[in-house]
């Protein structure tokens, strides 16, 4: 059975060495090379055959996110596992979107790391438990966001009054807001709906079922 060829990228030598020594005992793994930043990774994968790439996010020069993008573009066959301390939802979702196979937080132990490598080699995904949760949460909220109308509640109120040919002053009085606020809402509505004038806005509103 051929060994799994690994590339470890982290800007901290102590961490690189730690991971290397941790995986030395694994007979199925072979650490081909280590890298301190994204450029080294790109150079190495061009010369050597790599199966799995363990990527840190925070690296000088080309960071983990950019490196992941480039790798997916140039060597789509290489499985990428992010090994990072970042658990920000937006970062995770960005990387999932890019197409990384695994996402491990740095508090993972050896067992998790080994499992992740094996899993991605089989063509599947592996996320730390915490990361998995964040992704799921994000998915549900995304759905909620999508259902949120493009216009806010207040903007809809303003639009209804605009359709009734209210002037800015009248709208301000009706909604107990200032003239300037009405103007801001109006401009924002126009900008969001890409309408150039009131007629265009009304047309948009009818087409979206916002006005009946």
């Amino acid at each position, binding site marked *: 059975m051929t060994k799994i060829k690994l590339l470890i990228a982290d800007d*901290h030598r*102590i961490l690189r060495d730690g991971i290397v020594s941790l995986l030395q005992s694994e007979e199925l793994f072979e650490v081909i090379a280590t890298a301190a930043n994204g450029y080294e990774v790109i150079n190495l994968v061009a010369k050597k055959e790599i199966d799995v790439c363990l990527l840190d996010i925070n690296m000088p020069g080309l960071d983990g996110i950019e490196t992941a993008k480039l790798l997916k573009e140039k060597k789509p066959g290489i499985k990428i596992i992010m090994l990072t301390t*970042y658990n920000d939802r*937006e970062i995770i979702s*960005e990387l999932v979107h890019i197409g990384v196979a695994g996402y491990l937080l740095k508090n993972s132990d050896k067992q998790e790391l080994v499992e992740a490598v094996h899993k991605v080699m089989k063509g599947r995904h592996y996320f730390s438990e915490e990361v998995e949760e964040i992704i799921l949460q994000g998915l549900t909220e995304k759905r909620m966001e999508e259902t949120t109308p493009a216009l806010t509640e207040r903007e809809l109120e303003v639009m209804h009054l605009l359709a009734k040919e209210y002037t800015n002053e009248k709208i301000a009085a009706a909604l107990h*807001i*200032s003239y300037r606020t009405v103007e801001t809402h109006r401009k924002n509505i126009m900008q969001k709906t890409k309408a150039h004038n009131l007629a265009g806005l009304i047309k948009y509103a009818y087409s979206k079922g916002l006005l009946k």
Partner: protein
Amino acid sequence: MPAQAPGNKPTENIEGVYRKLIDSMPFFIATGLTTPVNLKRQCHLPGHLQYINSRYQVYFSEKALHLKEEEKDAYARTYALFDKFIKSYTKKDYSSSNYYCQQALDIAVAHDFSFEELHLCRPSLNNSYFLSGDYTNAMKISSAGLSKAGQVNDTNRMAHFNNVIGYIHMRQKNFVQAAQYFQLNLQLCRSLNDTLSEAGALCNLAELCIARGQYDTAISFLQAAEQTYRSMKDVSFFTPKEREAYVSNNMAEAYKLKGACRQALAFALNAASLAGSRLTGMNLYDKASYYINTGAIYNCLSNPDSAVFFLRQGIRVAKSIIHREYIRDAAEQLAIAFAGKKIFDSAYFYHFLFARLKDSINAETSQQEILQREASLKIEQQRQLQQSALEQQKLWRNIVIAISLFALITLGFLYNRYRLRQKNRYQQEMNQQQNELFNAIAATQDQERKRIAEDLHDSLGSILSAAKLKLSALKESQPAMSVDQLANYHVAMQLLDEASVELRNISHNIMPATLSKLGLVAALRNLINQITSHAGIQIYFSSHGFEQRLDEHSEMSIYRIVLELINNVIKHAEASKVTVQLIRHPEYINLSVEDNGRGFDYENALKIKKGSGLGNILSRVEYLKGGIDVDTVPGRGTTVIIDIPYTIA
């Protein structure tokens, strides 16, 4: 009328002294005595010789002049110049004589030779100006002489100058002033008990009266003078008879002009007989004039034979001294007399002579008048020139003052403007500097936050991770661990995990990694998700037009502003719903945070903004050159609208 220059009549005593000196003159010259003592005596001589004998005068003056010019002493120089004056004066070269005498006078005045000033220079210079027709300068010289005489209390000289000034006035037909000065002269002469001078003064007054047509007054003055002269005896050089003849002649003139030719004849005959008596001191001018006057009066009385007799004597004397005016007058009267005798060829001859002389004299007189007029014109021109020069000077001065003033005002104005501009520039610079400073501080702060956050996250996080790895490695190398050992291992691992989580939170609060890695919208979405999941509040976030990231500094600032605004809402607004919108317009970014809370008093909040969240928001907005508008009504929620301009990089 004899045209005698005033002041030329020396008083008796002085004249006697001169005469003696002149008598001894050939001796001085012969012995060649030229010692300074003698020289000084000699000095006085030539100037006065003119009264005696012009032939000697020239000879002596040349000699004396030569000697005196060798003397450098001011006194001698005065006399040397004075003699030069005499030379020009006798040649009737008045421009030179004026010049020399003026120099002599200057030296005399400078060295306070008051005798020379009052007795020589001023009287002579006066005569010289007078004869050159420059009455103005003559008057100036004599007026100064009068005041000087008053200063040194020399009554004799005061009388003299009064007389001279009166004479000048008479010549200029200022009869009133002339009378005043003559009267002053008369009074002074009386106060001096100088009867001779007094008589002279009376004669002058009489002359004035004749000129004014006051013949009777003239006659009374002359009578008084005549009495004086008749009562006097011969004194040395002076002969009262000579003066008597002069008075008689003037009497005759007065009566003749009055029309009383018979009375006139008596006086004229008296004068003529005195002239014929070979009196010492009687000069030929007067003699000629007396004969001619007598002849004229005989003509007036239609006695041509007697007239011819006297006129022939007169014309002979006049011819001997080549006095053209007298020859002319005599010729005129002879023509009349011969016509009366019906000897017409002689009458014609004298008339022809008369006419020729008249023309030439007229021509000369008019030439002299022209010269006089030219002189006065010159003086007037000079005065005008000075005046115009003065006026020009004044004009220039005024122009200079005006220009200076204008320049000063302009400069002041410019300086003021310059200062104001400098001040404005300074203010602007200050403001800009302040802005830049705040900018720099804010930017540095944000940079620092980012650096600290990343450092914490990266270095400390990595070390924690490495520690965990080492600990795992330790556990693997020790498969048979005691229960206690295993428990300790798990606690240690747990502590390291906690440390990692804590570290992540801290660094996230300082600067969320999402912001730097993925940008403003992602960071805000992250932020709002976190808040929504922890606080019991619904926050809607929507963004529009942020496919492209903003510059790092704007992103961080806006992130902080939103964070602060949401914090405010959570802390104070008691709102259940918040809408955060970030919309990119073509030229600005609009951020609005809208809540349904209780609203607040914005104006009041502004007053206590210092150090508060609102203060931070305001400075950040100001720094981004944005505008903030807080629309809040208590009980009806708050909308904060911030517009931030941006330029596409």
